[in-house]
């Protein structure tokens, strides 16, 4: 896979801006946003999630890929409209298909966690 210099979301870093400033062109993503999932690489956690939701495939997770934010591996969470950084302790696989499966699993763990920041916001602002 061709590695592009940076993500579309990580434009704040000075070094990351250089290629775009010099060429006047938007450089693009560091990963293939159109990559279709390889279902032979599903993790046991994801299989269980699909079973519980009653889906035959990854459904919305087909659009989830491992991205990069400010030079670090991260997953975009659409509910928060922000990037969730992958902990350093997790070793990234050497191919995008497996990295994407990892990203999908981590995102579910994060979104469904009782410690998700949206839980506190809902408690505070939910209309009752």
């Amino acid at each position, binding site marked *: 896979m061709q590695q592009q210099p940076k993500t579309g979301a990580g434009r704040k870093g000075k070094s990351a801006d250089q290629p775009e400033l010099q060429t*006047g*062109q*938007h450089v*693009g993503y560091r990963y293939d*946003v*159109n990559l*279709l*999932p*390889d*279902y032979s690489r599903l993790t046991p*956690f994801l299989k*269980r*999630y699909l079973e*519980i*939701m*009653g*889906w*035959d*495939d990854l*459904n*919305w997770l*087909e*659009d989830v890929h491992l991205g990069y934010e400010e030079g670090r591996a991260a997953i975009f*969470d*659409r509910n*928060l409209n*922000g*990037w*969730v*950084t992958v*902990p350093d*302790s*997790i070793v990234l696989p050497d191919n995008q298909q497996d990295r994407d499966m990892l990203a999908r699993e*981590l995102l*579910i*763990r*994060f*979104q*469904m*966690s*009782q*410690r*998700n*920041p949206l*839980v*506190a*916001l*809902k*408690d*505070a*602002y939910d209309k009752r």
Partner: protein
Amino acid sequence: MASLKTRAASDIKGVNAEPLSGRSMQHFFSAAEEESFLYPHAFSVDFNKRAEFDAGDLSTTQINAKIRELMSDGNGTVVVQNPMAKHSLGVGILNRLQLYFEGSLGYFGCGLIDGPNVRIKGRVGWSCGENMLAGTVIIDKNAGSCFGAAIRGGDLVCMGDVGGRTGIDQKGGTIIVGGRTGAFSAFMMQRGRMIVLGDAGNNLGDSMYDGIIYVGGNVESLGVDAVDAEMTDHDVVWLTRKLRNYGLDAPRGIANMRKIVAGKQLWNYDNLEPAEKKIVL
């Protein structure tokens, strides 16, 4: 001016006084979280617990409230009889659920859903599944214009024909059309996949920024910056699996479907010289 005597829940919890600088999602995240597969606020439902009700005399608000009430009682399968083509039914469901509509829906059916599997035994009006986030929606007959407008995730399937501007501003997910689609389908598409098994109207994929369109029939014309791409083995495997899930197949065979992607000429539109803009447009 009278002063407020009550304090908002956000004040009591200290949310408004909390410093925001230096905050990061990383602070909240632990990969060793105990396993959970549902949103923290989701209703705990059982697919084997079934309920149904007659929506004939109910308003849109009453029908949607009834579905929510049944979910809160643990019903994982809900059947709505006589929806009578009312608008905005089955919207905003952020839960796992098997939902059946025994009839047609009006405008904006099943919008903003995150998780449920919906089956509509009839037709739908404009903008079915708009801003859909996750789940599946299957329509047995035809659909109106703007089918899946701004969809962000999930599978939106129409077994029949759909109108124009299908998947306008699509940001993710998969739209599947068993029959034909109208003009300006995938207009301003940004991500996701659209599968049309029949013919497509004029200006397919006009001004698309990213994403993939697969067409099984004839395309009347492509829009600005929509270009043909090569079908790969991986495309065929993925399409076969996806279509099989809904009992569909390409009339001329999946391997013979046409694949259309963004030419990406518009990514740098502002930097183009006037002469170059004329070439693109």
